[in-house]
């Protein structure tokens, strides 16, 4: 007991000392003057008499400004407001006329002309055009082009020049805009001119090579840094650059070095590009290679700088601070490196990989200027799938698109619209309508009646509204953006489709997790046919698939807008002529946007047994095997897209307890498991 008391005494004593000490320290700190030099100027002083200070301007002074007459800027210092007449673009939006080439044209010019003609803005009549495109004469020929007929002082003209060299212009530019490859910052007029990338001679017209980054890897493993050298070559350096002068040229030997000949792409994390190097080609090479461009005080405007946020994909550093840049690159957080590399790939693929993309991006920029407030927001330009594939006319709000839910913190609407393509059928698909209307997620049913016969006046009673839309014969019209479609999700169906409510419910829940993809029940797969030297596709059941049939598939309604307004007309005509082609086309379109395969969900085999025998060949319905003639369609599509966008998948998404040996009562989607 005594030890207890002794101890508590000690403790009390200790505690009191501690308290005293604790109390004393702040006092000591207060007491010791913090500044050794009393009276020296220290920080910005807190004035004792701030209330005596006056405001920098008297009330009213700012409002009494004398007015100045408006100045119209003309000629050399043109800007968009003063030198472009948007009144011509009213109504039809941007219409582009391109002056036909006179005489023989070079390959590059031919590609540019083809790209403009393939654009959705192209018009053949100069009178109705609001933008007239003039290809700057080839510098090599030295020929003097006459002033074009509709010149009008250059008003509403865009002079396209793919070479940065000051081209010998035989006429004054007047009020024309200039789209020039790598223009110098001194002559570039922001918001009026367009900066283009410098394209190599053999740049493909369409499609184009994909980026080199095949996986999300922050470091390619070979080198940290590659330096641009003359002639489009790269000097891959290790991590030791202490001996390297920073103008991009290194005389000394720095251990292991490899020099790539020709246009080989650099295999490094960062690509150092000197600012005044004549060879701006390096920039595109680095972009394609997924090598983060480090531009040292560039004297040229970065391509499409009006809309592309280059800080997300490149680093513009000061050439005078080499060591600092180097340290910053070495110490850059992994997360940032990863993000920068991925952005290079996205930008390359969205805007630079083909001549067509470069031209279309240019036109899209002009279109955005005309649109003013309803132009693409910055998010649409700077995140996948890019502004060419995200039409601002669809919606002003990014959360209406299927692509930006994560960035916006939004989710797709929780209901769907069933769109039943009537085909040539004379009978309403009663069973199908009942099954679909039975889904708790169904908001409405739309029937596209396209038979010769008038639609029946009586339709089955359903829990959801049923609307009949009339009068379309063309197959491609099933993907028209009907204003009646009020939900984000569309369940596209044929009159012949057979589905159960469970299947619809589950597929829709899956779609909500993947709103940018197609979620379907029946699949096709494409393959490379060695024998025929072309693509083929099959409906046979295989271990993988790359297309889902639109006769029963969920997808976002945005794809209707894209299908109707962004696809080249030739491809849609093709689909109208060979109706099975429309499935291929839709799958091509979605795959080229998402770069991902569609999603397959389980589909009861009993549907197929219960189904009536196939109707007329090629007609809509649950087509089992594509017709031989239709096989050719996939090759035409691939040619139209310039590449094969389809991606294969080896998985199917099933309900969590699908066919598990547990009580059926535990399972949410029971009827999916019918034998």
């Amino acid at each position, binding site marked *: 007991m005594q030890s207890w008391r002794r101890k508590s005494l000690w403790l009390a004593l200790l505690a009191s000392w501690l308290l005293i000490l604790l109390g004393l320290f702040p*006092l000591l700190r207060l007491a010791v003057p913090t500044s050794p030099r009393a009276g020296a100027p220290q920080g910005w002083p807190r004035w004792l008499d701030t209330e005596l200070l006056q405001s920098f301007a008297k009330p009213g002074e700012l409002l009494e400004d004398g007015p100045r007459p408006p100045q119209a800027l003309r000629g050399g210092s043109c800007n968009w407001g003063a030198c472009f007449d948007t009144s011509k673009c009213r109504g039809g939006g941007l219409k582009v006329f391109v002056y036909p080439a006179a005489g023989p044209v070079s390959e590059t010019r031919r590609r540019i002309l083809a790209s403009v003609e393939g654009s959705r803005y192209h018009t053949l009549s100069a009178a109705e055009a609001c933008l007239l495109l003039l290809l700057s004469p080839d510098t090599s020929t030295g020929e003097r082009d006459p002033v074009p007929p509709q010149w009008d002082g250059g008003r509403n003209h865009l002079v396209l020049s793919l070479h940065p060299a000051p081209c010998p212009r035989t006429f004054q530019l007047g009020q024309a805009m200039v789209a020039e490859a790598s223009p110098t910052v001194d002559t570039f007029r922001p918001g009026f001119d367009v900066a283009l990338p410098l394209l190599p001679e053999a740049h493909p017209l369409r499609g184009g090579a994909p980026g080199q980054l095949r996986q999300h890897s922050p470091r390619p493993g070979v080198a940290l840094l590659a330096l641009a050298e003359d002639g489009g070559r790269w000097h891959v350096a290790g991590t030791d650059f202490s001996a390297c002068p920073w103008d991009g040229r290194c005389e000394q030997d720095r251990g292991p070095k490899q020099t790539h000949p020709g246009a080989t792409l650099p295999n490094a994390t960062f690509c150092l590009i000197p600012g005044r190097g004549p060879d701006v080609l390096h920039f595109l090479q680095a972009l394609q290679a997924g090598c983060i461009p480090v531009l040292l005080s560039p004297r040229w405007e970065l391509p499409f700088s009006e809309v592309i946020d280059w800080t997300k994909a490149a680093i513009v550093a000061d050439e*005078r601070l080499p060591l*600092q840049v180097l340290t910053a690159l070495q110490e850059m957080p992994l997360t940032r490196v990863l993000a920068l590399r991925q952005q290079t790939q996205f930008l390359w693929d969205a805007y630079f990989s083909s001549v067509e993309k470069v031209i279309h991006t240019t036109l899209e920029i002009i279109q955005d200027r005309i649109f003013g*407030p*309803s132009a693409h927001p910055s998010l649409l330009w700077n995140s996948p799938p890019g502004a060419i594939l995200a039409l601002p006319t669809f919606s002003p709000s990014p959360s209406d698109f299927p692509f930006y839910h994560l960035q*916006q*913190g939004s989710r797709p609407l929780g209901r769907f619209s069933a769109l039943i393509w009537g085909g040539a059928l004379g009978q309403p698909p009663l069973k199908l309508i009942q099954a679909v209307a039975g889904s708790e997620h169904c908001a409405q049913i739309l029937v596209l009646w396209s038979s010769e016969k008038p639609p029946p006046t009586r339709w089955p009673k359903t829990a959801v509204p049923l609307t009949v839309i009339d009068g379309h014969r063309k197959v491609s019209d099933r993907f028209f953006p009907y204003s009646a479609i009020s939900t984000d999700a569309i369940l596209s169906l044929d009159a012949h489709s057979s589905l159960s409510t469970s299947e619809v419910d589950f597929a829709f829940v899956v779609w909500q*997790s993947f709103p940018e993809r197609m979620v379907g029940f029946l699949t096709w797969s494409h393959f490379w046919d060695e024998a025929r030297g072309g693509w083929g596709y099959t409906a046979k*059941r295989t271990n993988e698939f790359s297309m889902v049939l639109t006769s029963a598939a969920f997808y976002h309604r945005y794809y209707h807008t894209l299908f109707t307004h962004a696809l080249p007309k030739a491809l849609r005509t093709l689909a109208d002529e060979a109706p099975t082609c429309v499935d291929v086309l839709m799958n091509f379109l979605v795959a080229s946007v998402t770069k991902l395969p569609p999603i397959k969900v389980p589909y009861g085999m009993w549907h197929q047994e219960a189904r009536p025998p196939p109707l007329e060949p090629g007609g809509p319905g649950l087509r089992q095997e594509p017709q031989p003639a239709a096989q050719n369609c996939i090759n035409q599509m691939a040619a139209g897209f310039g590449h094969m966008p389809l991606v294969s998948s*080896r998985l199917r998404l099933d309900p969590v307890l699908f066919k598990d040996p547990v009580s059926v009562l535990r399972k949410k989607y029971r009827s999916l498991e019918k034998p």
Partner: protein
Amino acid sequence: MCASVKYNIRGPALIPRMKTKHRIYYITLFSIVLLGLIATGMFQFWPHSIESSSDWSVQKRSIRDVPVVRLPADSPVPERGDLSCRMHTCFDVYRCGFNPKNKIKVYIYSLKKYVDDAGVPVSSTISQEYNELLTAVADSDYYTEDIARACLFIPSIDLLNQNALRVKETAQALAQLSRWDRGTNHLLFNMLPGGPPDYNTALDVPRDRPRRYFLLSSQMALHPEYREELAALQARHGEAVLVLDKCTNLSEGIPAARKRCHKHQVFDYPQVLQEATFCVVLRGARLGQAVLSDVLRAGCIPVIIADSYILPFSEVLDWKRASVAVPEEKMSDVHSILQSIPQRQIEEMQRQARWFWEAYFQSIKAIALATLQIINDRIYPYAAISYEDWNDPPSVKWGSVSNPLFLPLIPPQSQGFTAIVLTYDRVESLFRVITEVSKVPSLSKLLVVWNNQNKNPPEDSLWPKIRVPLKVVRTAENKLSNRFFPYDEIETEAVLAIDDDIIMLTSDELQFGYEVWREFPDRLVGYPGRLHLWDHEMSKWKYESEWTNEVSMVLTGAAFYHKYFNYLYTYKMPGDIKNWVDAHMNCEDIAMNFLVANVTGKAVIKVTPRKKFKCPECTAIDGLSLDQTHMVERSECINKFASVFGTMPLKVVEHRADPVLYKDDFPEKLKSFPNIGSL
């Protein structure tokens, strides 16, 4: 009992035993010493501290004591500014040099009063706003007192209002600054921020007044040409357009700046701005218009009709989101242009305009800091603030997720995956796992993390011979987080984390898991799925491992994921989660599920029907009671992590991934993954 015994043993050992007499002696001695110390402190420092306690950090001086500098009439005038200046030509970055924090250093010249030969002051010493601005700079991280270390210089000569300046004399004053050097690296503020400061109080109250007017013009001194255009607009669109002008018939005593009139109707300014959806900002004598600030503050969307007007901070702020720019030539169309903007976009713009005002223009301090941040971003571009950080209002930032693996791609199969086996001492089981996993075709490397410090791993000759490289990593401490360390030995992007007792997974199952990961490289791909549920009675999260129709987590006893998540787990795990996991020796898998879901905003992918990892040998100890404590612990983990993350990031889904032909009526030998295993 245990605790008190320990205490009794330890207590006396710490305090030396002493006789009572001695103890008292010591206590007294110590107290005297202490008292002495206190007394010394009091006498030595007390008087000082009373005097200086209020200004021990910053000096307080009177504005009237500012030193006076006489400028001779013939002192040098600086050259005119070079209009072709660019950051890389005119700015001397060498002064900024290397800086680990990537922050510029700003020096402020001390305040002087400049007078000319006749003794007449060159300008007012300093205005209230400029003092506020310099105070904000001095209080920021950028400020330095050492002129030699500074990379940016701010003169204390007040240039805010150009009208009040004596230009030549002010220039002379600038030229004699100690580091002027033709103005290199000097930052001059010349601005018209906001209206006069005497009418802000009345404004901040009613934010959401009905916006009665569609378009409003409130500027007073406008060119007649503009006024005509505006009048025409009003005539065409009637009530929706309101054009205000200076009041001519105001009685005495009412400040003219606070009133605007339309014909004989008098409106309070700037309150009237709150009643309009769009407000016109027209070109005046200066391009920059004070009305812009008033308009932003009122939550009205500015309609800029002034060609070549560079909007404030336009280098970083996306004004398209908060304003409408109409070319001067198209002024007559302004109504139809605005009419074409959908309502949702208008609301978005209003929100954006308000956010710009609050974040960057509300106070002199906000303006000063935004200015310095922009310059800082130019000098240290690799550490610059992103577009989203500048432009997204907090409500958007909070809900948005930026997936670090956002690029949609399917990695090539050829690279394969690295299996990481965490083991302690179950060598026999470990060897079986190694043998089984090595049968998976896409395995490219096997990494054994030896977590036992007391025992050496078996000799090389004893390990099973497999076709891929096998590496053993020894750890310094037996910690669960070692399994998620980004070892340099991992050369593939795909990682398979696998326990040393998971021998039931078939080769087909693992290979299929890898194929699924390739299609979802930004997700956790695992076998048994688990679910979190909200327990309404207890008002907290609950861990669920029963047969559910949903999953939100996968166990990492065997799971594929991207190597990058190892880096995130080790270096970027929020709060104390990592230590918590190591201390509890549990829930590392839940922590990984939280981390991945939080950073990607996406759900896990459960593969194949498997529900449990049950090793045949350990069923005996897997008793019911153990199971229950296990569940309680796991639930606790979920609640703990949710509180650290500040949200519940896990996403619930109802699907799992199976091979395309799984359980289909199809010949087994034609299926790619026939042996998908059991539950």
